[in-house]
């Protein structure tokens, strides 16, 4: 899996859990929280969906790795590929 594909997976998850957000212009290098209305409950759901849909575990101490799409790709791509 490429980093781009990984970003798309994260975006698809966000589209599912926050159907009322406009995701057409999400900047990969900007914190998700700063451009979308996401709170800690939404981040919990991103983690839960990663586990449910892709079997990927994100321990609580790593939640901050999911701050932006770029950091998500950096952190998650190796997990997808391993």
């Amino acid at each position, binding site marked *: 899996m490429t980093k781009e594909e990984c970003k798309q997976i994260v975006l698809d998850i966000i589209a*599912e*859990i926050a*159907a*009322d957000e406009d995701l057409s212009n999400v900047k990969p290098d900007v914190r998700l929280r700063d451009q979308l209305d996401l*709170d800690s*409950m*939404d981040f*919990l759901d991103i983690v*839960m969906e990663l586990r449910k849909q892709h079997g990927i575990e994100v321990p609580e101490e790593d939640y901050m790795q999911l701050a932006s799409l770029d950091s998500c790709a950096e952190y998650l791509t190796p997990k997808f590929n391993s």
Partner: protein
Amino acid sequence: MSLEEQFDVLIIGCGMSGIAAGIRLSMYQKRVLIVDSHNAPGGLNGFYFKDGRKFDVGLHAVTNYVEPGIKGTPLQKLLRQLRINRDELDLCPQWGSRIAFPEVSLRFTNDFTVLEQEIAEAFPAQIDRFRRFVQHMDAFDALAYEGPVLSARSELGAYISDPLLVDMLMCPLCYYGSARNDNDMDFDQFIVMFRSVFREGFCRPFEGVRKIIKVLLDRYRSLGGKRKMGCGVARLLKDGQRIAGAVLEDGSQVYADLVLSSAGLGETLKLVDAALVPTHNIGTMSFVESIQVISNQPESLGMDDTIVFFSRSDKFRYETPAEPLDLGSGVICVPNNYAFGSDRALPEGMIRITAQADYNYWSRLNDADYLRSKEEWFMRLQQVLTFAYPKLDLAALNRQELARDVFTPKTVERFTRHFNGAVYGAPQKKKSGQTDYENLILIGTDQGFLGIIGSLLSGISMANRYGLTGI
């Protein structure tokens, strides 16, 4: 033990908080069982049939209404968490409500500036103080607050110097969310309710609470969640500092890693051991509600408010009354008065009046006296309508009557099993949800979030905290 009897989570109560928690947990593959002693779902916000008519038990208004698209609000958060599309709930905003005291009335709508304007006109010397008080509340994190109990009256009194305005603001918020019986409210609770009622506002699905319950239950069912109705928990089985499972009223046993209970603090502990009930922390505030169904729209008789919170004296009382009913104050709700759209109106008119009641009086009556008392107090309660609507012709109203019902503290007890029929449960809440047993967690009323929206959020947040992120 068969697999059928082993669950990840057992939820006590199929009210708003229980169903919301059940949805969250089943979304993420937890095996969940909801049990309720009642046959019908919804708890205190359920519905029932009488003489072929459907009645909502509790619903006056769904609070926390905001226009579609407004984010960061309790309503939007809970829809997201439950993956419910807002349109499914068919939420229709109120026309407008009123706080009515002997000399002064304050109108409010789902637009907060209306209330500010009304206060500026009726209390010109107080409006700046009121605005500073609102800022004071904004600076306070009411949801996370775990400190000592602060009095809403003293906090209000520190900003607002006119006791009449203090009482007028207390009145609606006590009725919609105070478990205390000492004319006061916890300040953090006050802040949550102030937002729910004044800063956001009221709405209602055209079909009433049934619509909400149906959407929630459909969601729960589609996720594979299980329910067992008409069969409550008779006993919780302890195993050291943990709860191993439950014996149900039909004698069967179920086991679970986590138990979430919306039965109430003392009521839940009593299921473990009656000696654990915290006798100093038992609620007493209960209500009577009269419901009158009429053939026309109440607006045609001049009743054009959605909800009126009234007090017939400048000093608003909120305490367990010495009389069967305290006719000094109350809430009048007209479910017809919501903006359902130009092509829809409820087919019959309905008027609901709520007042504070003494559980001890109502619970001790024999069947015949109970029915007689309901009749007698219906008539007396109805008289308060002319305080809110001085021009109302009660005789004309009664000529249109199609049906009536009266709901007492005994009814609340039946629907919730709360001690004393206490609508809002125990006065001291457990915001962490924790009990003496590490895997027994409170949700709903006694966790501390009240009302429909509050109890849904309570179920969601406790399920997230203890069911999804581990204890």
